[in-house]
């Protein structure tokens, strides 16, 4: 059966979603109507179906396949959160699913590579020789070295390296 709900996930979802008010989903499509990603990539990303899958406890339906962004299309711009008539925090739920998927090693490479870069170089965009040369040309002092070891230590302590399946 494809439609066996993941009960542990439902519990986690409620921990994020049910804080005070009970907010049921209308499936009214307002989130998909305003979503910039859904407009740019029709058929590949749609918050409404993702929130449906989450509420039903079927997070597997929200994870992507090669031709679809699905959950990874969410850029956390919060437009859907603001428009939702029932004030459902969709991006919170999507972030939860993303985190679970990353831990299970189901995240696509393009998603984790950025985190790996930070882990390796201490910054999201490492310095490139071309930029170094340009800085020299304009007389800007060389870029100060950042303490990569310290960042690595923090990230290892927060278990990021473990979650990304790259030790050290």
């Amino acid at each position: 059966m494809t439609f066996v709900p993941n009960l542990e996930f439902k519990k986690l979802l409620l921990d994020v979603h049910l804080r005070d008010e009970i907010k049921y989903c209308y499936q009214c499509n307002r989130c998909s109507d305003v979503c910039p990603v859904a407009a740019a990539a029709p058929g590949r990303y749609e918050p409404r179906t993702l929130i449906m899958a989450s509420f039903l406890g079927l997070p597997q339906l929200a994870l992507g396949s090669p031709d679809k962004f699905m959950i990874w299309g969410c850029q956390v711009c919060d437009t859907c959160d603001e428009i939702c008539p029932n004030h459902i925090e969709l991006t919170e739920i999507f972030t939860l699913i993303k985190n679970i998927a990353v831990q299970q090693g189901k995240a696509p490479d393009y998603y984790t590579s950025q985190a790996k870069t930070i882990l390796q170089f201490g910054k999201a965009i490492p310095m490139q020789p071309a930029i170094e040369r340009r800085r020299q040309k304009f007389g800007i002092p060389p870029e100060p070295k950042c303490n990569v070891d310290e960042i690595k230590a923090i990230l290892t302590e927060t278990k990021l390296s473990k979650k990304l399946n790259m030790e050290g």
Partner: protein
Amino acid sequence: MSAKVAFMQLSSCWGCHQSLLNAHLGLLKVLPELEIVYWPAVVDFKLESLKKRQDGEIIVGFIEGAIRNEQDRQNTLLMRKKCKIIVALGACAVHGSVLGLANLYDKEDLLRRKFVEADSIGSSDVKGTWPKEHVPETTDRLMVVEDVIDVDLKLPGCPPRTSNIVSAVLYLLTLLAPPQGDPSKSVYDGVPKGESLVEKGELCFGSICAPSKDGSVYNKHEPWLGTYGLTNKPDMDRAKKLFELLSLKTKLTEEEAVKIKKFLMLALNLPGFEFMYFKGDPLQVLAKRPESIKEEKVGNTKILVFKKTGIKIIDDIIGLCLLKLRDSNQLKFNQATVCSTCERKVVDKTTAEFKRDYAGIADMNKCFLEQGYFCAGPATKAGCGTICPNRANAPCLGCYGPQENIKDQGAKMLSTFASIFQGDPEVLKEKVLDPAGLFNRFTLAVSTLGGKIKDKEA
């Protein structure tokens, strides 16, 4: 194992089935899980085959349409007998829709108009022939499905949005999934006496809940909220303790209320969908029709009647949870109308004129009501996606019907108009030619207006 489903067709236009078929390839995900045993719109199963099914054999029965004649009534009763879950699909089945406006007329008048006076009836030798044979008797008034049988799930809309129907079907399929917990045990089995959280005075539902099949261990620091559903073998001593603990709480704190809500949602596997009204969802029923759940007494403790699991102590605890939620005002249930999903700007919430739909072209950015057009948005349930006002520059007609806690959509809209209309009331009287048809367009059959009944003697 696939689930048996049946789709019944009463007096209606088949539009709701069209809406379901609109899912196109989206249906492919769902279809392998379904065994369709009756669906006149799509497959050629005879009614006899449905009659020969065993009672309760079909898991879900969808009923589209309203009850206009005796055959509709018989078919509805047949569906209730054969199906475990009955879904009223579409505005006709739930609210009577435009068909319900016929209730403003007497049955004789209606039949005469249709079979004798209608201009479209051809040659004069046919005209005036009142069909008596091979036609089912017309009922005195139009009824909705709920007037005849118990309905478990109501899915309004004319038609319900494709996505709504598919979501509802998916939810029903998740209900059919085999239990992932082990209902022959309780979470507290194996927890020594005095070590469970409930004995330490904390709300923990382990005594009436099932553990997971792989035997997930009870965490002594975190209350168990029913992740793997309810058990068949509750830990009686500690369940009684939980009942006692709950009954002593005069007012729930916010934290406790959230715990109870989570427990109910997890243990009963509630959908969390608001476009449909599901009778099996006590939170929804409590929020929208609190008066429909009666009170009863267990010993000296008042609880709300909840009978579903068949195990008294579990039913009692859930009933008590519901009562505490109701009485402590902690059941904060969000509900939205079409207005909450509308993009139009509302400025002063008044209008000085009343325009008919066809008069001029409405401003795309301004609220319809402020422009003087009739729009049923304020009294209509959200869920449709607000396609008419946002996309088509057409006011809401109210096809999704009222929110469950609004008794009469038409009356609500009348009072809305009474409070925003600044012009001469006489003008309004003159302009609104058919108030029942305008304010109760989709809901007359279930409205307080009822219908016309002719005195037999007169």
